[in-house]
């Protein structure tokens, strides 16, 4: 991954620009008077979505995990528009497993029902396959990847996550000093 901080086309720059634009939009929507806890919570949710969306869009190489994230975010917002408060199970296009996403604060905690043929126990490294199951639940889109892709996507995902944390931390520090 590009580690040149001043490179305008680096992942970090792209993410920063997108995320800041989103923050400005969210900031503009807040009421004039100080916010209620509920409003703050909604803002927190919007910010979290903006952070994930900004990162997923910034991943120019079009990774499986970023596609999965965007798909999940889009289907979540579609559901919210259709009817607020409805919780339903969504069949993913790309996998044969059923992912049930809730509108809880941790939208990444997807419960995956594994079908029997997902258990790649025929692989050489059976021990690894078992460990990989946990990883599949953490990496977006992980359920449909083979082990090699999963490990590859994981490396990229982690790099993006650390960039995301780094930038968000800087912004938070910058504005909590004011």
């Amino acid at each position: 991954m590009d580690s040149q901080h001043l490179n305008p086309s680096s992942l970090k720059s792209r993410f920063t620009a997108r995320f800041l634009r989103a923050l400005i939009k969210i900031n503009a929507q807040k009421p004039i008077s100080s916010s209620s806890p509920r409003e703050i919570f909604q803002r927190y949710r919007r910010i979290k979505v903006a952070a994930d969306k900004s990162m997923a869009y910034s991943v120019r190489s079009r990774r499986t995990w970023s596609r999965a994230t965007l798909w999940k975010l889009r289907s979540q917002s579609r559901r919210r528009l259709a009817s607020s408060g409805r919780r339903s199970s969504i069949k993913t296009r790309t996998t044969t497993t059923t992912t049930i996403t809730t509108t809880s604060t941790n939208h990444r905690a997807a419960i995956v029902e594994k079908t029997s043929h997902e258990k790649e126990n025929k692989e050489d490294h059976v021990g690894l396959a078992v460990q990989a199951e946990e990883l599949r639940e953490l990496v977006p889109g992980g359920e449909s990847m083979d082990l090699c892709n999963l490990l590859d996507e994981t490396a990229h995902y982690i790099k993006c996550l650390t960039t995301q944390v780094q930038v968000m931390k800087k912004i938070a520090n910058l504005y909590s000093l004011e």
Partner: protein
Amino acid sequence: MSSQRSTSSNKITDDELNALILRLQTLLPQLDQSRHGRVSAAKVLNEICSYIRRLQNEVDGLSGRLSQCLDSMDLTGFDAEIVRDLLQQ
């Protein structure tokens, strides 16, 4: 590791797998190779999972922090100067 090949289409070689696991190990600050040398693949994956969870929680926490900050944030005076400052270490 046994080299029994299955008839699955995922004919990953041991070397490929080890290379991928090794790359993941380099991403883990706590499993620095100079101190730990080769670590078992299972342990690497274990640590990777914890690391991902930790990072995701950090994003969560930072989103919360930002939602509080936004109350007092004045983002209208935003410009390239701030962005540049942000991106410099």
